[in-house]
């Protein structure tokens, strides 16, 4: 009964999902399908496929496009229907548990064992001592700043020594001085995502954990954000959401002098400046502001966050294809792919030797602090993975909008989220 119901459901999901793939032949060249999204504007998948082909002429990697916004929904439907690609990206780490717990990933511990320690983010995909996906990209959140606007306001450039309080002071000073200089740009822009506050709070607060059900560690971060909003040094959450502001336009069109964002934005900004979609101005990156002085300065390692992006293998494919797919994963995490990815401005999981490649791209900054920022950081995961991650993140998303819209005071919102986390998720 259960099996037939699952089969009917899979059939239905298959009808509504897009499909290709499946095992064709067991001999001769192997064709692997690889899931990607927004292929026209996200060149990393083609870069990986093309790069792999040069060293593995017998294995063809074909790309299969998914919708970026609904990637996981579509992928889950395709996997349930047995129509998913052979290799698929773990786009959002918070959904990794769904795939791993649902037995939709091949154990790739053997691939992980061969990787050097330079490949970051592998531990995020480890459950019960086994590795289930291999990271090819490992970003980290940094502080972008517009050198021209800083100079116009006469404010000293960031030097890597900032705590959040110093960052907030600089943002307010920039806003006032830019206004006096006749420029409408605000001091900073923190995007509407909950990770903009919660990601840093979780990474930088000692002992902080989502599953503790204790969210007091969020308070200083929300205090800073509310302070910036109230001072007019950044756009309020309400105005940003109702006007559908994009972070690319806020920084790229010089509406804000600073912005905290992931290193993936380096590629986008370079691309947009080259095409004219963003203004041409000098910019740089600095370490993200820190909670305390202990992790600031170029002699320390700044603590930041970001999730790695990994590749996993669909277990429904043949052994021969699994072997080929493992080779592809090893390539994607290795030094050759790292160079190729860096060449298009993407931060690879093995970023030890690619800083020079990225910073030699046209339009990229060349100062020492930018290079230090790119190469040196202690990057904590945004979403430590467990079965509680997705529901807890939904509760914290409500907290985020509640606090930043001014609907509920911080303490009350935190208490409410804690109660909900215990009642709806943790004590179930």
């Amino acid at each position, binding site marked *: 009964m259960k099996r037939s119901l699952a089969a009917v459901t899979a059939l239905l999901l298959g009808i509504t999902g897009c499909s290709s793939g499946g095992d064709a032949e067991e001999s001769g060249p192997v064709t692997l399908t690889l899931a990607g999204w927004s292929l026209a504007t996200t060149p990393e998948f083609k870069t990986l496929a093309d790069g792999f082909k040069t060293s593995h002429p017998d294995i063809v990697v074909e790309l299969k496009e998914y919708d970026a916004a609904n990637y996981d929904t579509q992928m889950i439907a395709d996997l349930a229907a047995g129509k998913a690609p052979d290799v698929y990206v773990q786009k959002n780490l918070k959904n990794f548990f769904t795939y791993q717990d649902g037995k939709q990933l091949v154990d790739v511990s053997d691939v992980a064992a061969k990787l050097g320690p330079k490949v970051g983010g592998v531990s995020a995909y480890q459950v019960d001592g086994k590795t289930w996906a291999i990271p090819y990209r490992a970003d980290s959140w940094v502080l972008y700043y517009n050198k021209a606007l800083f100079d116009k306001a006469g404010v000293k450039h960031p030097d890597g020594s900032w705590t959040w309080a110093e960052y907030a002071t600089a943002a307010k000073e920039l806003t006032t001085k830019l206004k006096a200089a006749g420029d409408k740009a605000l001091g900073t822009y923190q995007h509407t995502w909950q990770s903009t506050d919660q990601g840093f709070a979780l990474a930088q607060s000692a002992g902080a954990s989502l599953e503790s059900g204790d969210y007091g560690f969020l308070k200083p971060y929300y205090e800073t954000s509310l302070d910036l909003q109230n001072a007019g040094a950044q756009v309020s959450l309400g105005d940003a959401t109702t*006007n559908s502001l994009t972070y690319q336009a806020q920084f790229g069109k010089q509406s804000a002098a600073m912005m905290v964002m992931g290193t993936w934005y380096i590629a986008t900004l370079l691309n947009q400046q080259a095409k004219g979609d963003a203004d041409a101005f000098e910019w740089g990156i600095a370490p993200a502001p820190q909670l305390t002085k202990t992790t600031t300065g170029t002699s320390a390692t700044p603590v930041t966050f970001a999730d790695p992006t990994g590749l996993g293998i669909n277990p429904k494919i043949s052994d021969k294809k699994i072997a080929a797919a493992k080779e592809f994963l090893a390539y994607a995490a290795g030094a050759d792919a790292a160079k190729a990815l860096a060449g298009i401005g993407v931060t690879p999981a093995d970023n030890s030797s690619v800083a020079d490649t990225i910073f030699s791209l046209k339009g990229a900054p060349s100062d020492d602090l930018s290079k230090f920022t790119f190469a040196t950081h202690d990057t904590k995961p945004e979403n430590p993975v467990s079965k509680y991650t997705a529901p807890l993140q939904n509760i914290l998303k409500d907290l985020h909008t509640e606090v930043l819209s001014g609907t509920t005071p911080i303490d009350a919102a935190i208490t409410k989220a804690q109660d909900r986390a215990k009642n709806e998720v943790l004590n179930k």
Partner: protein
Amino acid sequence: MTTMTTSRRRWRNTAVGLSFLLPNLIGFLILTLIPVGLLFYYAFTEWNVFGGATWTGLDNFRQMAADTTFWTALRNTLYYAAFHIPLTLGVSLGLALLLNRKLRGVAFFRTVAFFPYITSIVAIAQIWNMLFSPGFGPINELLRWIGVDSPPGWTTSADWSMPAVIIVGTWRDMGYYMLLFLAGLQTIPGQLYEAATVDGASAWQRFRAVTLPGLRPTTFFITVLLTIGSFKVFDLILVMTNGGPGQSTLVLAQYIFRKGFEENQFGYASAVSIVLFAICLVVTVIQFVVNKRRRS
């Protein structure tokens, strides 16, 4: 012989009729009926979409009874329905009465009123969000201009987000229901109005004694459609407020989406769907019973 021919012809006509219906029937069966049937099974299971579901009996419903977010979503859904249904009924009837006259350019105005209904919901939500924007939105600019010192935060305030969504929902739906009311108005015989006028009835009396009773079947039909539509509201709220700020506009349909597609708890999501289905069913049955009593 004649009987045979008649029955054969009847069968052939039925077969031809069925063949026309078949594509739709197959689609309905595969994409609606079977999934709905499965929903009733999955509501009593724990299921993460991969592999088989585990039968858990009434666990999902017990969990729902203690789930504060479920009750918040239910309350918000009732709030939306309680205001959206009468408001849309009133506005669309008013529009229909206004545009049922022989005015110059009446077709243009009817099209204008109907236009929101066929416009992309995402576009509608984006534009209205910009109009409602607390800082730079033209609505608040206007309010400030006429002397309102602290205009509402609209979609960014927990108190005003639901009214804002109801206003947009009504604006979006009014054209469609106006069209149904217009069709209803065309069926009322003109002689009734003439007779009422001859008897000296005022415009208000004509409306109460002729128009409203004449529109009763249409009004009933629209009320049923509006009720089901209001309880199922999803897309508009998803794009406009995504359930926020906080949980102020989280409705049942979005809660189902969250539990199923974001948290992968398809069994629990199915159970909430059944509750939503039951609410729609009960309210609709009550409407049918009340309507039947009135008619008799």
